[in-house]
């Protein structure tokens, strides 16, 4: 199926759950409410229309500083405006509803008010189509945002969810042993969050068995 019909098919099944969708550069993307995740994932895996037998990738994005990055060069904006070329469309392609994270100055064009977006990339080997599912989490200032675990459906979710927990501090409900995977036990913080400084150093506190 092509991107448009994939999105339409998901919308038909979850009219209430689909918050937004886009097919930027041909990648079918559906932004879904988090309470529908497990149900939608099961449908994607088992429905003959989708047959998504691969959970290719699972990651997250911290949108808390989206659109607030200042250009480090003070004269960066003094240049002559370049008119958009047909090869690089300059029109804002971001699909999401306008209004960013409140603390981020509500930059229009961010994917929504949530701080994090958990991103799932599905692939169907029999039908050769891909779908990206995005679950916004952390709308309110939750200390530990949480989504359902997909480890009961795909074995690959096990380690990938551990990595997202390690790097972003997003919990997965129903995961058997959600512990750090790339960092060591005793590491403080979640390094891929935007508020974690790049050059922060931490002492190594030996492995815990």
């Amino acid at each position: 199926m092509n991107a448009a019909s994939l999105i339409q098919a998901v919308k038909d099944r979850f009219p209430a759950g689909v918050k937004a969708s886009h097919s930027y550069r041909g990648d079918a993307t559906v932004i879904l409410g988090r309470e529908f995740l497990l149900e939608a994932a099961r449908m994607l895996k088992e429905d003959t229309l989708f047959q998504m037998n691969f959970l290719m990738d699972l990651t997250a994005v911290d949108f808390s500083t989206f659109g607030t990055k200042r250009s480090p060069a003070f004269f960066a904006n003094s240049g002559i405006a370049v008119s958009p070329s047909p090869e690089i469309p300059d029109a804002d392609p971001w699909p999401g509803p306008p209004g960013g994270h409140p603390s981020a100055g509500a930059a229009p064009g961010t994917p929504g008010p949530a701080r994090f977006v958990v991103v799932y990339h599905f692939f169907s080997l029999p039908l050769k189509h891909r779908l990206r599912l995005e679950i916004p989490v952390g709308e309110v200032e939750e200390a530990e945002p949480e989504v359902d675990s997909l480890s009961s459906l795909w074995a690959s979710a096990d380690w990938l969810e551990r990595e997202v927990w390690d790097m972003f501090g997003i919990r997965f409900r129903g995961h058997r042993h959600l512990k750090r995977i790339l960092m060591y036990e005793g590491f403080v913080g979640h390094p891929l969050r935007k508020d974690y400084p790049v050059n922060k150093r931490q002492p190594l506190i030996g492995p815990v068995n």
Partner: protein
Amino acid sequence: MDLTKTPGSPPGEPEIREMLLNVGPAHPAMHGIIRIVTKLDGEQIVDTDVEIGYLHRGFEKMAETVDYNGVIPYTDRLNYVSPLINNMGYCMAVEKLLGISVPERCHYIRVIVSEISRITDHLTCVGAGAMELGAFSVFLYMIKAREFLWELVEMVTGARLTVSYCRVGGVKADLPEGFDERCRKALQETRKVLAESDALLTRNRIFVDRMSGTGKISADDAISHGITGPFLRSTGVEYDVRKDCPYAVYDRLQFDVPVGTRGDNYDRFLVRMEEMEQSIRIVEQALRDLPPGPFLAHPETGRPIPAAEMVDEGKIGNIAAIVDARAVTDPTLEGAAKSQHPNIEAGEKRVFLPAKEDTYGNIEGLMQQFKLVMYGHGIRPPKGEVYFPVEGANGELGFYIVSDGTSSAYRVRVRPPCFAIMSALPKLLIGDMIADVTPTFGSVNMIGGELDR
């Protein structure tokens, strides 16, 4: 894993306990730093726990702090046995984000170098795996073949390991003169080595006994774990990104996707051996179909001028003296002359550096150069997100990039193919003997740089 279990034994009987054995983090049979805690019943593995992360360098965090082209050297260090495929994957993901495409010759060059990389990767994996089972001579033969191929890589990119060859919107330089001939010769030598290794291994009793039937996984389990690449194909599933989601010019090249039947170590060995042969086929076809490059002007007639002199002439406005002249540049810029430029870059001025002749010779080129290299300038893709998969040596290598419209990526995520395979390692090992850890782990082809990022 329950480490405290010590089952009580009936009185009079010897006490039977399960033993814990720690393999790694630094162990001669580990091709990287990784720790496998095995629980043994006799010699049989009852349970394992795999610990990774010893080589975590924060690739994804670093990629958020540098500009788009600045990420390329970091991608070299992901899968350091086949860095050119990582280069290509990352660059094609950013190109998808930008919505540009590179010229045909550039596509072919990328395909050639990435297939050469695939052969070097498989040679290393099979050679090292065989060495660990005692077949040391095979390792030496295969490393010899890898050396021929790395000489080609050095010839094209100027480096052997940290190549940084691709650029967003093109490649660093065109293929050097005489590459065609050297490449064909190296491939012939590689074919000979493959035949020798095949004779030494494929029907070798010791090798077959160690590899056959060990490290088995079913096709369903492999798919559920998200395993791709030669590892998945050994279970009989025919999935190759080059065939199923073709990119660059793979849809124009003829090649077969070898599949196994049993999903054990021996099948993985056979799949990798056949894939090398298919990669050689691809390179040969790509060399045949490679669109012709420019005829390089002869140094005398092409009037090469030292770069400094060119700058001086340009400063006093003597454009007539330097127009159409070739600049004598640093040897590292060989292959990126003005005449070669249209073939290796996308022709989008906001993405690719101008030819050095333009940078030195006219103000437009100079401004273009500075607008791309100055801190805070550089490539600025529109806001958006893309995922782009390529077939890495270990399986699907995907880059997921989120852009916020500034000169550095908002988020770069790599889908490392061996992460999925490593997550299935307990499934591969449990039930086998402790000695089977070596061939199984060898056939996983774990690359620490890519696994831990």
